[in-house]
């Protein structure tokens, strides 16, 4: 474990970079997926095209998407923006369906009650439907977070620094400690994000934890 004590600063720096490369796209992706998911939910004819397109985007292998990004964005290959945009694409692809399904899980009675109370479409969405969809969206966000942390490590193959550097360097120079610590750091980061989102979801959906019967 001498590797760890000698490279603690590097580890911290790479973890922070990894967190940004995986976390910022998570937020951007969620912000983009909410209106898209709403559209898919609100207009049934838009559902299939939106969900199919986002599904197809998700099928593109990460290394290929990282490499093709400079072509689409006009950036340089080493630019971290490529990774942020590619990860945002993946997050949106995962979440559009989740948001639409989450909104669909809101009971029709509740929507009608809100409409009867005189709430317009936008306020109904922001104050009733979206908060009630939080548990489903949160579950999707957790999947996206774990998958983002794993995918970001691939960016070390195109030279964008993050925890994946420990994996490639550990492999290339046969430093097993470095490789294992890199993997462990990735796993812990994924678990940390997963736990954070789970706690946030819990806080934002207190009715989910009422005593049985109390909710009805």
């Amino acid at each position: 474990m001498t590797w760890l004590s000698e490279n603690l600063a590097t580890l911290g720096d790479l973890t922070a970079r990894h967190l940004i490369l995986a976390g910022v796209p998570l937020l951007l992706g969620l912000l983009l997926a909410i209106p898209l998911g709403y559209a898919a939910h609100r207009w049934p004819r838009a559902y299939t095209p939106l969900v199919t397109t986002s599904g197809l985007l998700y099928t593109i292998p990460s290394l290929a998407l990282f490499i093709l990004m400079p072509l689409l964005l006009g950036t340089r290959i080493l630019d971290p923006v490529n990774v942020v945009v590619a990860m945002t694409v993946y997050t949106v692809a995962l979440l559009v369906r989740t948001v639409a399904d989450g909104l669909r899980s809101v009971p029709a009675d509740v929507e009608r009650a809100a409409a009867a109370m005189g709430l317009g479409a936008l306020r109904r969405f922001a104050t009733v439907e979206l908060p009630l969809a939080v548990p489903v969206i949160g579950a999707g966000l957790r999947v996206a977070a774990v998958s983002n942390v794993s995918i970001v490590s691939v960016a070390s193959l195109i030279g964008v620094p993050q925890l994946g550097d420990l994996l490639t360097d550990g492999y290339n120079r046969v430093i097993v400690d470095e490789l294992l610590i890199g993997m462990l750091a990735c796993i812990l980061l994924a678990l940390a994000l997963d736990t954070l989102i789970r706690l946030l979801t819990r806080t934002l959906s207190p009715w989910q934890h009422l005593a049985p019967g109390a909710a009805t």
Partner: protein
Amino acid sequence: MTTRIWEWLTAASSWRGPDGIPARLGEHLLYTGIVVALAALIAVPLGLWVGHTGRGRWLVSLGNSLRAIPTLGLLFAVTLVLGPRITGQLAFVLPSIGVLVLLAIPPLLAGAYAGVEAVDPGVRDAARGMGMGGLQRLLRVELPNAVPLLLSGLRSAVLQVVATATIAAYVGLGGLGRYLIDGLATGDYAQTGGGAVLVAGLALALDTLLALGSRTVISPGLRLTVART
């Protein structure tokens, strides 16, 4: 840049020989086929059994929690450990194939399990009432009903393998990933970009094929219920 990628993709030299596009594409498809078949042999019976008996659900959650392990690290670690113990050309192939099988198992397992689990209890009871035994129920009622979710697990597994096989070129696997990795190593962006286009195209084509194929395999009775909801 786009023109240089196009030139690489259309150059006659890119299409010839053991590192030509047809050969690399063939390798990629061969790896994917072998890996998914091996993973399905393990995961599908196991998933059906878990769904049928309700025992061993932890296997499915274990499979899902494996997703937190970075695939790149898993490839490197297994190659470092196993590589030196295998002689010859296989040293570059076997560790990667092993990791790919490991990665293809969780989606297939989850699909098979969820498919059986989601079968309407009424349907199960009806089969029991008709006098069907456990194995008969599993094969003639639960399995056909599980096909839609099983196939969506298969799609995820295939895409996972196509994507990770690309990365595995870094540890010496053949296939289309060679263009991406070798191009990056030599700064040949036309080759890297061309390879990326091919890999993306392969993934999209396979996904579309599987989506169309699953329509013909799913029992007409199930399609009816899907359409109704």
